[in-house]
């Protein structure tokens, strides 16, 4: 059972992830790999957090946030995703976590769109000298605060959604842990192919790809 401290930390992590994804720093703490693992740590199971974060990361591999592109926001979504994976437990929990992470990343994208429109309203007229410096600074920080609040609400709602899922749902899942991870990695295979295509002249680097495949196989056999 999750305590108040854990809940508070997860909500804060959601806020932090939302801020990091655009408003503050972009240190990539908002990557699902990181926020999922941190959520797992808070809940005492970083390995499950890492696994669900890595699965979400695989889905986002080809996303390029150029010029304000509207992409799914996986960071805050990875928090309830990790919570689902750990709270529901087993392979079914992992599958539920991935599904919730995807849904919440789409919800994150929609709320980010609203946030950017709200920022536009708050800053309307700045380019025409509408604000004295103090007001401009205050409005800038209000925008940042709203973004953090957005992430906190997203994470909190996700956790709430997991807690109202019917008991025994994860037992319906038909696969074991390894089979589940393999199934859920299939979309990431699509993303990896897509990413390879986005790199310049991938075909002329065919031999390098083969070297990579052989090295990866050897490393996986060793570890």
């Amino acid at each position: 059972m999750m305590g108040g401290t854990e809940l508070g930390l997860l909500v804060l992590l959601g806020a932090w992830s939302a801020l990091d994804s655009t408003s503050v720093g972009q240190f990539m703490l908002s990557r699902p790999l990181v926020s999922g693992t941190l959520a797992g740590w808070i809940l005492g199971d970083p390995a499950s957090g890492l696994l669900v974060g890595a699965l979400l990361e695989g889905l986002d591999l080809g996303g390029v946030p150029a010029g304000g592109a509207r992409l799914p926001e996986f960071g805050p979504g990875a928090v309830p995703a990790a919570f689902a994976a750990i709270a529901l437990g087993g392979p079914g929990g992992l599958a539920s976590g991935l599904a919730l992470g995807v849904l919440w990343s789409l919800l994150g994208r929609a709320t980010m769109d609203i946030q950017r429109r709200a920022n536009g309203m708050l800053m309307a007229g700045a380019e025409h000298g509408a604000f004295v410096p103090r007001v401009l600074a205050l409005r800038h920080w209000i925008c940042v605060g709203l973004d953090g609040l957005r992430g906190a609400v997203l994470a909190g709602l996700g956790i709430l959604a997991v807690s109202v899922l019917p008991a025994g749902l994860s037992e319906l899942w038909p696969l074991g842990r390894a089979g589940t991870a393999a199934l859920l990695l299939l979309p990431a295979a699509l993303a990896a192919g897509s990413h390879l295509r986005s790199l310049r002249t991938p075909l002329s680097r065919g031999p390098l790809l083969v070297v990579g495949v052989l090295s990866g196989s050897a490393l996986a056999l060793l570890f």
Partner: protein
Amino acid sequence: MKTELTLLVRSLVVQGSWNYRTLLGAGMAWVLLPVLRSAGEEGEEALRARLARHAEHFNAHPYLTPVALGALQRLEREGADPERIRRFRRALGGPLGSLGDALIWSIWRPACVLFALVLVVLGAAPLMVTVAFLFLYNLVHLGLRVWGLRVGSEFGFEVAGALGRLKVPFLSERIGTVGVLLVGLLVGALAVRAFELPGRGVPWLLVGGTLFLVGFLKRDLFHRWMPALALALVVGGFVAGAVRSAG
């Protein structure tokens, strides 16, 4: 030095008020505020005019905004012609955006993510994966911010020449090469893990390989269908499980 440090720290929040109308404009004005207070004509109205000039539409990659910030703070301090500053600002944004997108979002970030995913598949500990990913990524991220502010402050109007020295095509070529190698490493490691699955390795490998090829050949389909595919797999799995347990 103190001004540069202030600009560097404030540049981390330059996207705080990102909006569809002026994009980074208002954030740029906020970052430059301490400089604008101390440079140029005195008086509230003059300051407002300087602030408004820097709140106009501006777009750039966030990690390269220090290039513009460094140059703009120098020009404001030197009392350059406001119209010339405005034109310079407009001309600089586009290249800073496309350079950053090409180098960071398209190449460097995916390379770091692939590296982290390879570590995950090889069974590295969660702490090691996250620390290695964040350290590697932010080494370049923070390095780029510091470099950008330095060249912007040093070259002012002539900063475009300094940007040429970044050798973006060469860098993206090299990082892209590493990216291909990392995709290979990930595919190879996953293939071995698939064979370790009891009795089901080959079908998983065939399906995964087919999807990899589809992703490679039909790249444009990817963004549209990725979330739907992931959700369909999970819902399909639960439905199959429910049907099996009902039967």
